[in-house]
């Protein structure tokens, strides 16, 4: 009888501990890596550069109500009047580039699998429906920049904003 009680108590304690920890970890958050483009020699023609970045990560542990992430960007400017319009910067996330780290094996899905120009209006690129994708996921987005033929030399800077949101 005593051993049965201890088994029951151990199971109860295990569930309680697991429950408290999972509740504690319920914070929707995102980790990103820097986005790099190689420098290039201007030659009077349009040139396409592929951006590189390491895997980004969403922690949606305990987030059962659904979530999504968006991206927006600004123009590139060289500080001396030279501008590369943000529309030359394209982005996509292939479904094959989303992977499970831990948690619900139902992966979030990409909502932008083909390259699309970025703009000052955010675009949703990954989402999880309510009741799914309660876990940690890595994803590797792809960036592509077309440097127009008429670009002046210089160091161009822009800003990308990544947001992860819960809402209707």
């Amino acid at each position, binding site marked *: 009888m005593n051993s049965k009680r201890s088994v029951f108590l151990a199971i109860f304690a295990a569930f309680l501990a697991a429950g408290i920890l999972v509740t504690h970890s319920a914070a929707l958050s995102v980790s990103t890596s820097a986005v790099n*483009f190689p420098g290039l020699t201007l030659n009077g023609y349009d040139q396409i*550069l592929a951006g590189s970045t390491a895997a980004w990560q969403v922690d949606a542990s305990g987030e059962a109500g659904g979530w999504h992430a968006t991206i927006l960007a600004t123009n590139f400017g060289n500080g001396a009047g030279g501008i590369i319009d943000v529309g030359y910067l394209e982005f996509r996330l292939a479904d094959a580039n989303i992977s499970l780290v831990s948690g619900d094996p139902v992966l979030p899905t990409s909502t932008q699998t083909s390259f699309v120009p970025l703009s000052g209006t*955010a675009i949703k690129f990954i989402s999880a429906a309510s009741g799914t994708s309660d876990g940690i996921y890595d994803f590797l987005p792809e960036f592509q920049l077309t440097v127009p033929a008429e670009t002046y030399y210089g160091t161009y800077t822009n800003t*990308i904003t990544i947001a992860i949101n819960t809402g209707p």
Partner: protein
Amino acid sequence: MKIFRSSKRIFLVIVFAGSMLGSFVDSVIAQSSTGISFGIRPTKALEGQEETFSYFSYRVSPGSVFDDEALVLNDGDEAVTLKIYAADGVTARNGGTDFTEFGGASTGASLGSHAWISLSVNEITLAPGEEQKIPFRVSIPADASAGQHIAGLVVEAIPEVSTLDSPDAADGEAQFNVKVIRRVGVAVVMDIPGEQISSLEIDNIFLYQQEEDGTTFAVDLRNTGNVFLQSSGFFVVTDRTAENLITTIPLQFDTILPGDAVTFYVPRAARFADGEYLLSVFLEHEGKKVVLEGVGMKIKNGQPELEGVVRENIFSPEEIEVFFADAEKEAGSVWITIAVASFVLAFILGGIIYWVGGKKEAKKSRHVLR
């Protein structure tokens, strides 16, 4: 023997508890290895409002004032300083709630809703693993109109900057420096009583781009009501006579906030041959149908050219209904297949258990006879 069995059970329970604990610790380590990580969420959920587990949602009267709090967490392994602010809700391209940047304004019905929220702080520094409750006050203007007004609480980290080969580009060279700003937002939905209007318009449809690996269409929608809505339906391409259906793409469009206009991209994994086509979109929301049909599309040497609406009344309401009915039937048949498969599986399993049980019984009776 009994003692051995129960200690074995206890051992299994400990292993189980350990593995659950282990999976939690694993997740934290996995996250920490990629740098700072932070979030924001409500501190409590309201009974009967499931959405409040994920975001703030209030049914409130004009002129009301109330207090609440948000929980801001640092899940990473280093201290983090975060900007925290209220923002207007906006709809992202492809749908879904997003929030304006600091100081920005919505162009929809949520314009200015950020000003209804006042926060006790605008910056916060958290140690690794630390969490802090941030009080805020919501003051609904006395003249707030009926319907849903969406704002958000946003936490934002200082930007991450890409590395450059050298600080200055040489003559004839260009180099690129990208700052990445990270934000986490949680919606604050303020639902003001009164007439709730759900209304959707399709502004435009067009072929956005055609490349070697496929085609992307774009559909421009506008929420002309005062509540947020989702819609589903079909993108239909026919030949110019509208006699032959070329392709039908099912659509599931995410949330559009009241008053917002938004573009949804619709991919198709195939190119269109040169020729003339008609594009149509049928959508359904809250049981209402919205249609835009007969947009002309010409493709010459692989290059699309849009002509606007060239033909109206292609599909009768009954024909449009058939698209939705077929989809429902298809969804129903999937469930029937699953139900039949489950029944067969259960039947087979039951048979195996019965057969194994019978064999054991026979063995036992042989043993007794001996």
